[in-house]
């Protein structure tokens, strides 16, 4: 009986999981498929070829050809890959260094204007990029950053979203601990470093993973602020999908996914804990 109920519960979950994971399976297999097979299988959907797309579970003749041609024939792919790291890593590091103290202050300090400040952060977090693009460009230009990768890094580093996530995480730090630290004579900085940071680690790392995912996939900002394609990140590399390049597009998609997925797997535990702490109330 219990077993049956277990199975009944499993069915919708498995169905849901299949729905979620299947597209990823599709992509991995797509990048291993030879071009002529790709043309037959998903050509009808991506090009103007007639017919219906089909999708075999496994490619009939797995090949690394698209991957090889991407890595060997398109040197700019490597450059762009590396460029991405040059943008992403300072951005997330900045988010932590700048965001964590701000989040701590907003969460744990009592002062006038705290609510207003928190509202400002949340509102800014929700503003679409198009809204502030022009004035943003002006600011970057005034600062003399145009074309420099810092024009992309700095706005990301000051992003409001990680502050929000960390703020929720710090909310979960028991006040009793802070008070204990206070009695022991620890100042606010020491309390933050020795109590706040260790206890907020899940939230901080969750913010880091989310920040990584966001900067990794950023398109508009680098396109607008970096006028030199030589410093563009990988998110801007997506060859026009034509029948000859289907395999390459598939392989590029997969390669773009891999670092994000790796980072994600490394951080998943913390991401979960962090997201959880954002949801927990004191």
């Amino acid at each position, binding site marked *: 009986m219990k077993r049956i109920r277990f199975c009944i519960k499993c069915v919708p979950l498995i169905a849901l999981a299949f729905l979620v994971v299947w597209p*990823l399976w599709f992509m991995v297999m797509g990048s291993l498929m030879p071009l002529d097979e790709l043309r037959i299988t998903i050509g009808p959907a991506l090009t103007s070829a007639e017919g219906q797309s089909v999708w075999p579970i496994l490619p009939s003749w797995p090949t690394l050809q698209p991957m090889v041609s991407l890595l060997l024939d398109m040197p700019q792919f490597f450059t762009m890959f590396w460029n991405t790291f040059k943008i992403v890593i300072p951005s997330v590091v900045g988010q932590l260094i700048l965001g964590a103290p701000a989040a701590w202050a907003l969460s744990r300090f009592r*002062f006038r204007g705290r*609510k207003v400040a928190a509202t400002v952060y*949340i509102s800014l*977090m929700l503003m679409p990029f198009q809204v502030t693009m*022009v004035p943003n460009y002006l600011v970057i230009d005034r600062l003399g950053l145009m074309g420099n990768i810092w024009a992309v890094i700095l706005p990301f580093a000051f992003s409001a979203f990680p502050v929000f996530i960390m703020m929720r995480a710090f909310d979960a730090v028991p006040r009793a601990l802070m008070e204990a630290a206070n009695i022991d004579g620890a100042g606010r900085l020491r309390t933050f470093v020795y109590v706040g940071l260790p206890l907020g680690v899940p939230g901080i790392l969750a913010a880091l993973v989310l920040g990584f995912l966001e900067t990794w996939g950023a398109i508009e900002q680098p396109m607008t602020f970096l006028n030199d394609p030589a410093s563009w990140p990988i998110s801007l590399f997506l060859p026009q999908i034509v029948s000859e390049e289907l395999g390459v597009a598939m392989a590029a*998609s997969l390669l773009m996914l891999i670092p994000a997925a790796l980072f994600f797997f490394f951080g998943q535990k913390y991401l979960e804990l962090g*997201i*959880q702490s954002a949801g927990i*109330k004191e």
Partner: protein
Amino acid sequence: MSKAFATIWRNVRKGDGPAAVAFLAPSFGGITVFFLLPLIDTVRRGFYDVRGVNFIGLESYVSVLNNQAFRLAAANTLKFAAVCIPLLMVVSLGTALLLRSIKPMGKFFKTAFLLPMAVPVASIVLLWQALFNEGGLANTVLLRVGLEPVAFMDSGAAFWVLVFTYLWKNNGYNMILWLAGLDGISETLYEAAHADGANALQTFRYVTLPCLLPTVGVVSILSLLNSFRVFREAYLVAGAYPNDSMYLLQHLFNNWFMNLDISRLSAAATMLGVALLLIILVMRRFLDEKD
């Protein structure tokens, strides 16, 4: 002892101001430069002509409110938020509840549901084209089971493709939020309900739901945030002029920008900003009801 605590606590409260400034200053400075000032400039541009030289008052606002494209986009955006946010909240809560009841496979399913978050937009676009274009896989499946193919991107179905994208991407994230909320509910409450003879449904209705209320605030604000992000996928899959049913405010903003219509764009954005601010102020009641 409690008196001593109270004094210390008062001191903490009193003395937090300068420390808060020190902690907040770097971040807030950057926020001001990179987001707040640009936002103020956007508001200003709503009252000026395209080159930002001549004051034109409320002209742009009037024009925006009378614009058919704006009305359609605003209605669609509202509809999208009204449909997909509650839907996501229900689906992800359901997922979380199911997941809690089957402990052994929990880790696997969590990973599966969270994975879409890591997929870059560019990859999603390729996937979605293969799935939902006319000769795409979704139609192949429909044909195999004997149904008529659907023009997913060129009919009212486009709206539901967008909803599906949103659910697909954010279900895992929200599920984790709910799981946290569920974990926070004390076992004794359930035991008490059980002792009173409540069935599963009653337990859910009278124990689980009220205890989850605080989580609702966070879940909904993050759902709202993510509902804005779905535009990227929509734009890259269906272009600047998609089917009417998925023509969102951001499409309009984007197209106005392409046409250098910055005054109307700024006016519309300001109105959106005010609307969002109102929503946030309401939500903050949930978020901060303790303070």
